[in-house]
């Protein structure tokens, strides 16, 4: 293969090489001509364009989408806000400008300088958000004193009610450096959803910014618009929340601390999701002052925390609903199985007490649920063992995020043998199973997990990823449904569920009912109380609940289901330091269900 070419052959190939070079040359001639055309023929034109950097692209911000409730009531719209902007290339001395401006408005020197640095050469940067009328007038009258400064209309959020839905809607804030680095078209000073729907649905809400290419004069004024790309308004988000119901819950809750969730167990859509104390979204418009922010985050009651999804507590006796089902489904008990409650259970020398010191005597599962007997469920737990219990709990979604479309959801915890080994390098003790059987010990769950657990039990085994959004309204017309995802399908024995529902009904309505405070007259409901200990209350054992300091009182749960004959909704209430479930949370659920009836969600027939 490395033989040299004969002269004849060589000549032919050399000719071809020369042809190739001629082709190269011709192509290069085009380059030379083009270079000549740009640099010599059109020099004046391009020189002028370059001297003042006269071709600029200006952004046309897209209007943010609205947020509506399930009936189309506008919860969040926009209103104009007047902002003060500076154009980087047109400002000669930023310090002097800031100094002059600070006599009129409260300019944050450091932030403005940071924004200035992050801005493209001829780009605009935000100096102040939310000018008032006097400030606008002054600036317009004296605008020649502030070269490179302009007033721009931007939109900010306006809330029909700035308090009762704060945790769901979420607040807006300025983009962080991280957001800018991700480079999704945000510019320094832009507002972005920071929590709740505003954050989770940011990409839908924000729309697509437009732009216009303009030619400006040497002072930066637009003299010619060259082309325009129109912005696309953000989509509207339609919540599954009923504003009227949400508002009613706010007044039912009054000064209590805690949360309520109302979940449609057939669709996985949330009808109300309330957390107290709430915070005022208006405080974030047009921007939150340091004073306001400090007062929110230093508030001991943590108003920013969405207690329905971010706070996990032992569910207490509410867990007995699931325990009953596991016991029946695993055949360790049946409807007639009886255990004797003497007020406590002796296990290897330790005494595990029932809430009723005197004991319940001999009782069946039905009575154990109605009277919330602890000893009965200790026995069920010992028969099942922790492995079975945690397997079921996991399948029903306890101790794991539900995946709800809101921010900062917490896992909570449901213990297992492996978990304990990993966490404490220690084996699981049967005593811990006893405590877990009544929803205490290591177990902590969020109210939304309890709601999902109950809904999967009562709807035939569909474990939903709950959602607060019905769908997205694109361009104000096309509606894209937000389908609820089914995470897991469980095989449920409906006979057992019927039995449990019957017991839950009696828990509210029978003679010894622990949940009688949740009674509703117009419709039949079922429910279960739960009490989660904060501290061992031995110290206060002789005292009346009202005499115990607030922060040492038990947390109070109540999980309700309505209508009990054919469940459609679960209502879970959690009251922080509300005392027993019976006293604190049960009346809340009763009142919420009354409202559900009034609003026509539940038929009274």
């Amino acid at each position, binding site marked *: 293969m490395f033989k040299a070419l004969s002269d004849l052959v060589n000549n032919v190939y050399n000719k071809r090489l020369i042809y190739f070079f001629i082709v190269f040359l011709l192509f290069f001639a085009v380059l030379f001509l083009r*270079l000549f055309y740009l640099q*010599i023929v059109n020099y004046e034109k391009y020189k002028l364009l370059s001297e003042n*950097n006269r071709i600029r692209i200006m952004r046309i911000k897209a209007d943010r989408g609205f947020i509506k409730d399930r009936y189309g009531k506008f919860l969040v719209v926009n209103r104009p806000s007047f902002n003060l902007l500076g154009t980087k290339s047109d400002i000669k001395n930023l310090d002097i400008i800031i100094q002059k401006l600070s006599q009129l408005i409260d300019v944050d020197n450091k932030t403005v300088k940071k924004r200035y640095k992050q801005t493209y*050469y001829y780009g605009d940067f935000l100096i102040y958000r939310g000018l008032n009328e006097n400030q606008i007038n002054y600036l317009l009258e004296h605008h020649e004193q502030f070269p490179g400064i302009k007033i721009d209309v931007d939109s900010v959020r306006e809330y029909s009610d700035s308090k009762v839905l704060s945790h769901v809607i979420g607040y807006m804030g300025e983009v962080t450096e991280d957001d800018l680095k991700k480079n999704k078209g945000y510019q320094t000073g832009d507002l972005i959803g920071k929590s709740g729907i505003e954050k989770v649905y940011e990409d839908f809400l924000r729309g697509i910014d437009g732009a216009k290419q303009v030619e400006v004069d040497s002072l930066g004024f637009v003299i010619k618009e060259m082309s325009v790309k129109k912005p696309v308004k953000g989509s509207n988000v339609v919540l599954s929340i009923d504003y009227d119901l949400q508002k009613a819950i706010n007044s039912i809750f009054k000064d209590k601390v805690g949360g309520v969730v109302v979940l449609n167990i057939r669709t996985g859509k949330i009808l109300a999701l309330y957390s107290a104390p709430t915070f005022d979204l208006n405080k974030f418009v047009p921007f939150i002052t340091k004073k306001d922010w400090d007062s929110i985050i230093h508030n001991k009651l943590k108003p920013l925390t969405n207690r329905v999804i971010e706070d996990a507590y032992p569910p207490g006796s509410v867990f007995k609903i699931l325990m009953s089902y596991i016991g029946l489904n695993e055949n360790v008990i049946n409807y007639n199985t009886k255990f004797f409650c003497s007020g406590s259970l002796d296990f290897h020398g330790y005494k595990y007490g029932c809430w009723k010191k005197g004991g319940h005597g001999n009782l069946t599962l039905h009575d154990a649920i109605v009277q919330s007997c602890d000893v009965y469920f200790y026995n069920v737990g010992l028969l099942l063992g922790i492995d079975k219990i945690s397997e079921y709990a996991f399948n029903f979604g306890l101790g794991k995020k539900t995946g709800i479309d809101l921010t900062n959801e917490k896992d909570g915890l449901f213990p297992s043998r492996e978990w304990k080994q990993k966490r404490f390098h220690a084996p699981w003790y049967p005593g811990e199973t006893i405590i877990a059987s009544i929803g205490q010990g290591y177990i902590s769950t969020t109210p939304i997990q309890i709601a999902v657990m109950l809904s999967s039990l009562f709807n035939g085994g569909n474990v939903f990823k709950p959602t607060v959004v019905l769908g997205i309204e694109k361009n104000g017309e096309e509606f894209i449904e937000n389908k609820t995802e089914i995470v897991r399908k469980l095989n449920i024995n409906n006979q057992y569920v019927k039995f449990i529902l019957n017991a839950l009904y009696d828990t509210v309505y029978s003679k010894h009912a622990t949940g009688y405070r949740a009674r509703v007259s117009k419709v039949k409901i079922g429910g279960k109380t739960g009490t989660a200990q904060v501290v061992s209350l031995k110290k206060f054992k002789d005292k009346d609940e009202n005499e115990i300091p607030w922060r040492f009182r038990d947390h109070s749960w109540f999980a309700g289901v309505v209508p009990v004959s054919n469940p459609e909704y679960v209502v879970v209430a959690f009251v922080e330091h509300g005392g027993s479930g019976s006293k604190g949370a049960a009346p809340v659920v009763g009142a919420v269900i009354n409202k559900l009836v009034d609003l026509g969600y539940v038929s009274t027939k």
Partner: protein
Amino acid sequence: MFQLNRKHFKYFDYILTLIVLTIATIGIFAIYSASFDLNSGKFSSFYLKQMIWLFAGILTYLLFTIINYRFLVKHSFLLYLLSLAILLLVLIKGHIGMGAQRWINIAGFRLQPSEFIKVVWILFLAKQFATNKIEYATFLDIFKKLIYLIPIFLLIFLEPDLGTALVYVYLWGIGVLYLGVKRYTVFITLIIIIIALPVGWNHLKDYQKKRVITFLNPEKDPFGAGYHVIQSKIAIGSGGLKGKGFLKGTQSHLKFLPERHTDFIFSLICEEFGFIGGATLLSLFLLLLMRIIYIAILTKEPSGKLIALLTAALIFFQTYVNAAMTMGIMPVVGIPMPFVSYGGSSLITLCSLCGIVNSIALRRYDIVS
């Protein structure tokens, strides 16, 4: 492998070496200028890194000059198989960046194998297309040669890196043309291409389609690629005859130009050194092409001729596409300017190829059996 004697040094091609060094030095100065930020008054370290790359490039150039290119050609099939394996590895385990899987991490360096493998491809094509008689490629011939093109094309196309994949096709096409084709072959090929075009179009990614549309109709995207071209044209045009002077290119320094140290380096050179500078640089490239073709003519050994031709064709292609793009007569594609744009992979690849060409010049009078 090396086979060097004193006679060889006599034929060391100083002109080729000098042109390459001159162009690369212009590149260093341009990158130095591009590294300068007028707002902060500071330099970034691109030019320092490029100097290190150039040093490595010179060493590679010399190394490949010393190695007997025939040794490489002889083993090019093995190198080709190895390249396919590497490209497959990139697809499976490569570093994912900007939505594409083109890179591989070796000892802390991020390498783009499809760049280096161009060297292997040229050696391999030289072996496949070398012939000692006057031939015209028939359809069957072309079809046979396609067998080697398809796997390497697909592997790079899937990264996805259509631009680089097409360079491989282009080099292959040059090989076919060098072999010589009859008129009717050209005619039928054109028909096939026209029929295949819509099919190919449907397989393009959205951004690739967008680029073509943008080029055919710049009005469609005045805010993306279209904007860069406008700014680049302003930079070049405002340079005028003599330019604004070194480090004085306002347009490029004020961050109007994106990628000004890589894809748009030519705009900066034209802005700061004007028509004189731009035309000089293009002339240097032309001189380089001329020298390489001259070496191709000098050697009588077919694979040597092909390597030199394909190297010239590659340099021509990259220079032309890059310059034409900055001047708005070609779509914006990410092809760097040879020896000038910032970046190690491209520089090392081109230095290797020019080193091989020098090796051909060195051994042009070797007796071959």
